């Protein structure tokens, strides 16, 4: 073996470990799940049913409800969070701001909390006799306690508030680091040309942050489509199934009801398809012009 072949062999052997691991623990289960999505039955009594599971999706009212719930979170929560994160990061990037480190840490801190732990705390905060209701009542803003958890409308609001609280800081960090890469001289030139901070934000900051905005909106979209912990712990999908997400439906199909792993796999592939479609859409809408 000459020197080059030997180096090659060694490099490949290093890569091989990762490749084998990924194949064994990612691709193999993915293919198995795809095969399983064409099967149906209870527990271990699975049999092939062709595309029955996929046609069942279109008549399944629970699937439709969970899909529309997930979309609602997507349409309201993701833009809200992105705008909020952008706004906060611009504020925190201000040169004249004191205690910058403190504010940054404070806003990022929710992102390091455990999903389950914060969900449980939110559940108690937003309970009928919880802190939020007590506070609003003491301030005489509301006359009767709001049913944050048990009313279909308010339960959705509670979930949106919770995930916004948890994930805004996480997205903010991306914007902050991107903002630091924007050269000050650009802003200086703009100021000399007479642009106010409003114009600066929309004409300089936003266009320059576009790749990051695209990145965060894709990761947030994927995150929302996979939303599970918060809903499971705060409302259990209720009242009824008015806050239930796709992921929770998969959980119910596999573990709460008599297990139908085949159909559960089909629903999870529906999520995969949705994620692919959304990512392509977002690339097309935002990314194309930048190349």
């Amino acid at each position: 073996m000459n020197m080059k072949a030997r180096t090659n062999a060694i490099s490949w052997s290093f890569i091989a470990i990762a490749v084998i691991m990924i194949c064994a623990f990612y691709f193999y289960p993915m293919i198995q799940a795809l095969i399983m999505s064409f099967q149906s039955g209870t527990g271990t009594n699975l049999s092939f049913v062709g595309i029955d599971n996929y046609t069942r999706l279109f008549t399944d009212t629970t699937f439709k409800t969970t899909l529309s719930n997930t979309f609602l979170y997507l349409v309201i929560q993701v833009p809200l969070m992105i705008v909020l994160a952008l706004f906060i990061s611009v504020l925190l990037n201000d040169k004249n701001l004191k205690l910058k480190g403190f504010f940054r840490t404070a806003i990022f801190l929710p992102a390091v909390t455990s999903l389950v732990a914060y969900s449980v705390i939110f559940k108690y905060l937003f309970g009928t006799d919880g802190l939020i209701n007590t506070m609003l009542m003491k301030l005489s803003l509301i006359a009767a306690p709001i049913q944050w958890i048990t009313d279909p409308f308010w339960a959705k609001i509670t979930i949106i508030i919770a995930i916004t609280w948890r994930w805004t800081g996480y997205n903010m960090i991306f914007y902050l680091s991107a903002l630091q890469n924007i050269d000050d001289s650009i802003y200086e030139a703009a100021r000399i040309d007479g642009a106010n901070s409003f114009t600066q934000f929309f004409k300089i900051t936003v266009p320059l942050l576009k790749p990051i905005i695209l990145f965060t909106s894709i990761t947030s979209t994927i995150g929302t489509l996979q939303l599970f912990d918060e809903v499971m712990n705060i409302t259990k999908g209720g009242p009824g199934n008015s806050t239930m997400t796709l992921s929770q439906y998969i959980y119910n199909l596999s573990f709460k009801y008599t297990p139908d792993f085949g159909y559960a796999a089909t629903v999870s592939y529906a999520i995969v398809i949705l994620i692919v479609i959304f990512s392509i859409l977002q690339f097309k809408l935002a990314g194309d012009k930048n190349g």
Partner: protein
Amino acid sequence: MKKIIVLLLASILILSACGTKTDNGNAGAGEGAAETSKITIWAWDPNFNIKAMNLAKDAYAAKNPDLTVEIIENAQNDIVQKLNTGLSSGTTKGLPNIVLIEDYRAQSFLQAYPDAFYPLTDVIKASEFADYKIGPTSVDGKNYGLPFDSGVTGLYVRTDYLEQAGYSIEDMQDITWDQYIEIGKAVKEKTGKDWISLDPNDMGILRVMAQSAGSWYLKPDGKSADLEGNVALKEAFETYKKMMDANIVRIHADWSQYVANYNSGDVASVPTGNWFTPSITAAADQSGKWAVAPLPKLTNNEKSVHASNLGGSSWYVLNVPGKEKAAEFLGATFGSDVDLYQKLVTEVGAIGTYKPAAAGEAYKAANEFFGGQKIVEDFAKWTAEIPNVNYGMHTYAIEDIIVVEMQNFLNGKSIDQVLADAQKQADAQIK
């Protein structure tokens, strides 16, 4: 360059050697645990079924000191999840010998994983247990489960609030749900206290009402939904709405709020399973203020009786090494030990479903918290009256549909439409 590579390779070798060594150590320990002189048991409530199992363990150890029994606490959801993943993957390693399964879910496991459970037909006499427990725990005439606690229901009620409203506990005997609501309105008017606490996500009260009339979400075959045209369920729906409309209901979202509503004295009555007794008696300051009345029955249903069931679970032996020992252990304890059942009542507050045990002393004891009422005797009497229904495989799947349709019903949709829609969804889902 070469030297560095050699050094690297050598260090990797040494590291992996260390790794293998520790692996071997672990595997050795694992094999030791698999020996049949030890059985493991999973249950979920340290104050209830785990405590009960510990009593059984002590009773068995007195006669058979050789068997090591390890009881492991897992949340019920975790047990369900671990069983599902373990059994469907085909590897039984890591699963226990004995597991506690809720009766509503039992058929789902027994039928979804045939051969995963060990029949107990030879170990227990099915006729010695409450009739209604045998259906959920057996398949094709074979008993797979050892019936454990009774979920027999009663109506817990605050006698002091009743008196303030001009009623007494005698007025609560053998009433209908309509009468129950009328009394509730009077109590709310006089005392300002709510009458009942309900969770909009938990239709337990509907199940209780339906079973009291010998009806269920599923037809007796346990496989197809029985919603449209189910008269018992229809009346249960209407009764639920009457309660909501009467403004006597306090809403809770989880177990701790539920118990708190009663312990704080804000709510005056609770129709539920007897396993709720420890939660009621937890408020020591309310001693003497509670009584237990028979469950109200459906007003317009002739088949409805004053007894029903909510929850309750049974022990199952998994078809893994050690199954004979495990079955023998269950047979010698919960399967035949009358004394153990007396201890269950006095020390745990659990009422079993083993009929011969009801003749014991502990069942006749008066409970001072409930004004000297012999509540265990009453519950044992009602247990025998519970109509037998087949819980089938899909109770929780249908419950989720019912929860949604109940909201539609409360918002004004007609009852026949509600049940027809629920039937359609259920048929699509549980084929």
